[in-house]
């Protein structure tokens, strides 16, 4: 589904990704871990199409298409979803409005009619209940005055409504208390399916207790330096990132 080969990117004069290669197939859950500044968020933003990042080398193919040729909104409509590390506030714009606009943008792209307002609300309320979200958040400004946990749940809500083919969640677990973490993990798990891939970017093993990854990768200085199964995450938790760095440079 997603094939990244030798990806190099820079922002300004700083090279961040330095030849990253990653292959993600439908049905898989990948976890990407790594120290601060290793390029995890950059990877997520490049896949989503943020144009602060310049791709200097390498390829990114998504379902056989050159992803780098597509505008961010086209990628989104094609089923690429990014759960942001820091979801932005958009005061004055109704949360439900964006959610509905997003659902409809995707439906139009897929040649489907727009969603019926009543059905939409019903579905959104169901999903919110499953995530333990206050339904009132639907009528607030987008992320406006939301707590950290509410913002992250809101990202997961958008994801579950949009049903992406490729979901990348950038530190969706950070700053969550244990109840919120469980709710978010539950949301992610409901999306697991044979035709969908999920990439979790995280610092901590904690989330992976609730969402079992098929693969764990360690990113360091813009490259994947180690890949393995879930045991790698546990090993990391135990030994810290220095161990990976040493292993990588050895």
């Amino acid at each position, binding site marked *: 589904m997603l094939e990244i080969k030798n990806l190099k990117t820079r922002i300004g004069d700083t090279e961040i990704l330095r030849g990253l290669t990653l292959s993600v197939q439908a049905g898989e859950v990948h976890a990407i871990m790594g120290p601060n500044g290793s390029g995890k968020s950059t990877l997520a933003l490049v896949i989503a199409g943020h144009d602060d990042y310049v791709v200097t080398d390498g390829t990114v193919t998504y379902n056989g298409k050159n992803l780098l040729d597509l505008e961010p909104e086209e990628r989104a409509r094609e089923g690429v*979803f990014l759960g942001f590390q820091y979801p*932005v506030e958009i005061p*004055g714009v109704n949360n439900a409005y964006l959610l509905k606009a*997003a659902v409809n*943008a*995707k439906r139009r792209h897929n040649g489907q009619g727009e969603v019926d307002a009543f059905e939409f609300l019903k579905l959104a309320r169901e999903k919110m209940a499953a995530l333990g979200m206050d339904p009132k958040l639907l009528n607030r*400004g987008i992320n406006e005055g939301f707590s950290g946990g509410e913002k992250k749940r809101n990202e997961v809500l958008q994801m579950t409504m949009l049903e992406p083919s490729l979901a990348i969640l950038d530190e969706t677990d950070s700053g969550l208390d244990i109840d919120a973490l469980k709710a978010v993990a539950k949301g992610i798990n409901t999306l697991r399916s044979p035709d969908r891939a999920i990439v979790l970017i995280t610092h901590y093993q904690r989330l992976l207790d609730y969402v079992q990854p098929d693969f764990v990768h360690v990113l360091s200085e813009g490259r994947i330096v180690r890949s393995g199964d879930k045991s790698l995450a546990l090993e990391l938790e135990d030994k810290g990132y220095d161990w990976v760095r040493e292993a990588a440079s050895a």
Partner: protein
Amino acid sequence: MASENMESLVNRRYEHGFVTDIETETFPPGLDEGVVRAISARKNEPKFMLEWRLQAYRQWLEMREPTWAHVHYPQIKFNEISYFAAPKSDDDRPKSLDEVDPKLLETYEKLGIPLHERARLAGVAVDAVFDSVSVATTFKEKLYEAGVIFCPFSEAVREHPELIKKYLGSVVPRRDNFYAALNSAVFSDGSFVYIPKGVRCPMELSTYFRINAANTGQFERTLIIADEGSHVSYLEGCTAPMRDENQLHAAVVELVALEDAEIKYSTVQNWYPGDENGVGGIYNFVTKRGDCRGANSKISWTQVETGSAITWKYPSCILRGANSVGEFYSVAVVNNMQQADTGTKMIHIGPNTRSTIVSKGISAGKAQNVYRGLVRIMPQAHGARNHTQCDSLLIGSECGAHTFPYMEIKNPSAKVEHEATTSKISADQLFYCRQRGLSEEDAVNMIVNGFCKEVFKELPMEFAVEAQALLNVSLEGAVG
């Protein structure tokens, strides 16, 4: 990404930039007493009206153009402007829409204003002003049954001189300001509304103004009188075709609300703003004022201003009657090289008078947007209250927003509040929306409409939809 893209989105074309080829009979450029007399004669006005115009003209000659507004433009050469233009077939004016020049109807179609359908569907009586002479009036009979007078201003001068004599200039005196004086001397036409005592006007009243002939200043004159206990909602909307010369527009609108009466005046203004280099565009120097003359009366202004190269406009309320209420809801959008200096005045004279001001200014391109507002509480206005909220939204990094609130409080029991915010559409916000599948333009529209919704909800329903669409067109290309 942000700044580059935002600049590139600042390229839109004015949708209504076309010119209808209707033979117009236009006075040669220039202004003197002869022109004033000719206008009056052309309209078969009674003598009192001519005298009124002439006095205004003489007063205007002694006045100077105001320069205090935060706008910049080349000196207007008043002698190069023609002061009257009318569709030629003035004598046999159409009695119904069927008789209206098909080209004119076509023009309305292009503007997205299918007059006949729209009027019927929305239950709106339309007094369409094309250039300076009204050419179509609908729903007149229904209004007549209710005792409502809704007619072209020139007709009111002939048919209802007692009302004109009593109220014309009673809110905006001839020499109120330079442009009001000019308008008083040469006003071409406009609308007149009288709602009798205790009558709730059975439909929204609406007028579409349109400037069509090149180099012809348009000088609309509108007078709305709501007699005791009556209620009326009036809609005004405008567009104009593309022209290179700057066109001067100096309208005067006077509202009078007597005891327990209510007037709601809504405007969507979309005159040609000039191109992206600031060439062409309408100069819109308007005096709008409402007088809450009676106790418990209410006047509410709602405006959505997207057009004109320069806007100079302060719809105001004189809160004379005890417990009277004044409201001002405004969205002003400027893009490219547009300049707007707009706001309101709330003059509290009567006891327990209340006013609300909600102003939303949006600036894009290199445009400059000014809110200028005066809240004056007179010594006798015990218990007066005002709440002002003034928000600015910036798109891109080359535009400007300025706020000049004036407050003159002469009564210690007054409560006056002022809140102001300035925000900017950020690249992060746009990226967030795009990642959810919205195009950048849709994202901007969504954010802008969210910013304006407090004002839009004050507009009559069908107007709110139109206003929202208009805003989207106005900001097309504002972010890229």
